[in-house]
């Protein structure tokens, strides 16, 4: 088994202690960057490594950093630790187990884009974790890795934690910035994008926790080392959060390109009660449903490009396994209840769309729906697509449309009770 790159606490006990992290090469990459590299050289290494954003969108990280507007100052870095997608629980394990590598990633990103202040935006439920990170940040300040004139240079950096208070939408980067500004977490109209107009209207880079945790080792070992793992389209490793009907749910750090079969059967111990996999949701509740009607589907490689050939997106790689005991009318009633609750209410499409979809999924699931309700549900979902202010509204329609189209028999059965 390969050594972990992100979940290193599984190989190195006590790596959440500063001395242990340091002994294992910690902070060398940050020190080297600040004392020996220009900011754009750091960005170039990340660009060349092929690292893509791990929050779900998969946007090239180095390119995002290079977009920062150097005519407008100050700059900010915001680490997205809002982890709220149903099925995703990787960032929490990183921050609990390997906090310094994450914080070093924040520090390197800040240096690369010229930010002297960075915020870690944690979902409000991570209350204990925020207090823990505050301790780790204080230890870094004490040891001279954060603060004024770092390593004898003129570069200074402060990192602060900020707790959200229970709102999925704050994982959307512009809603997160609004929330950090002390407002309701509602997305902004884009463009402009955060690298030109971000926190307090200043150029800002927002990166996911897992993305940033990759950065110290990429700097230490080089872009080619990172690119040697994974696939041409999706470089490096990914933490797959495996949940649903598997025997051993959990986080598994694997190279991109690993098959669904290996994840579910070799690592996840197979399906509960030895049932058959009926569907896979590779991107949490925001997924399109992958239909597993042929065993070969399980041999599909998990990387951004290949998953797309199955009519779905890999997203945050929160793999929820659905077995043949589950009916899709129940499932979409669950996902729609979630999106209706989490819709921020700013755009009409999402606010009204999720509301009406929830009435329809409820009715279909409780057995009082008709064929016409299923048609109407599909129609509402399709009408919403391409018309929402942010991705949340779009995401809400994914499971609905693909469940009705790919599992029509489940809906026929559900409405036959009426």
């Amino acid at each position, binding site marked *: 088994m390969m050594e972990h790159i992100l979940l290193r606490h599984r190989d190195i006990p006590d790596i959440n202690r500063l001395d242990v992290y340091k002994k294992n090469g910690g902070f060398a990459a940050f020190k080297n960057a600040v004392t020996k590299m220009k900011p754009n050289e750091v960005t170039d290494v990340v660009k060349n490594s092929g690292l893509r954003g791990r929050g779900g969108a998969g946007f090239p990280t180095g390119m995002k950093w290079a977009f920062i507007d150097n005519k407008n100052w100050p700059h900010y870095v915001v680490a997205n630790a809002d982890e709220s997608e149903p099925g*995703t*629980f990787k960032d929490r394990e990183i921050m609990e187990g390997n906090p310094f590598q994450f914080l070093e990633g924040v520090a390197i990103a800040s240096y690369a884009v010229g930010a002297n202040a960075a915020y870690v935006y944690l979902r*409000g439920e991570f209350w204990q974790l925020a207090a823990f990170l505050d301790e780790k940040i204080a230890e870094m300040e004490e040891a001279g890795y954060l603060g004024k004139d770092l390593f004898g240079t003129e570069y200074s950096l402060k990192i602060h934690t900020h707790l959200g*208070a229970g*709102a999925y939408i704050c994982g959307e980067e512009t809603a997160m910035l609004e929330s950090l500004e002390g407002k309701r977490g509602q997305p902004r109209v884009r463009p402009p994008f955060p690298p030109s107009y971000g926190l307090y209207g200043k150029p800002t880079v927002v990166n996911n926790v897992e993305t940033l945790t990759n950065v110290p080792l990429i700097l230490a070992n080089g872009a080619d080392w990172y690119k040697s793992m994974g696939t041409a389209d999706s470089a490096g490793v990914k933490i797959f959060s*495996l949940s649903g009907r598997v025997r051993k749910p959990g986080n598994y750090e694997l190279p991109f390109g690993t098959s669904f079969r290996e994840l579910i059967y070799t690592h996840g111990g197979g399906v509960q009660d030895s049932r058959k996999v009926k569907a896979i949701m590779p991107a949490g509740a925001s997924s399109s449903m992958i239909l597993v009607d042929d065993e070969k589907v399980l041999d599909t490689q998990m990387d951004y490009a290949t998953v797309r050939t199955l009519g779905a997106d890999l997203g945050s790689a929160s793999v*929820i396994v659905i077995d043949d005991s*589950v009916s899709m009318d129940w499932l979409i009633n669950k996902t729609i209840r979630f999106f209706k609750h*989490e819709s921020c209410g700013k755009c009409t499409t999402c606010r009204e769309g999720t509301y009406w979809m929830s009435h329809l999924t409820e009715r279909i699931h409780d057995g009082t729906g008709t064929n016409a309700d299923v048609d109407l549900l599909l129609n509402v979902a399709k009408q919403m697509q391409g018309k929402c202010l942010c991705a949340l509204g779009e995401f809400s329609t994914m499971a609905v449309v693909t469940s009705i189209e790919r599992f029509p028999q489940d809906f026929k059965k559900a409405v036959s009770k009426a």
Partner: protein
Amino acid sequence: MSLEKKYPKEVKQILAKYPPEHKRSAVMPLLYLAQREEGYINKTAMQDIAQILDITETEVASIVGFYTLYHDKKEGKYRMQVCTDLPCALRGAEEFMNSLCGNLGIKVGETTEDGLITLEGVMCLAACDKAPMFQIQGADGIEYHENMTVDRTMELISVLKRSGREVK
């Protein structure tokens, strides 16, 4: 007593995190501070916060209303927030919730007669591999409880009842 008088050190620490010209950013941590008292945020606290940050009371109230972890009325001493979202539901969270209701003699959204527990169904808490699970929100913090059974939950409740301790 005003929030600033009661917690001068904490208010100062919170404000120091943000640029002075953008002190409105402090509204969320200040609301948590206010909630420490009684597990909910009363009108006076909202007025205090509005004054500290130079924003209107309505703006403060809109934040309380938008985010689910702020409360504007008194409920049970502890809010037991069980995740019944899709991944947890696939691992028995709904059955768990139903049994809890039976054991506590209340429905979801209700509070036990002794005022100790308010039972709530909540959205994903990022612990999908450790279902059934819930968090307990008390006046002074949030605590996760994972891989739970009904028996262990009832034990936890009786400990909370006996000790009357605050959740950290």
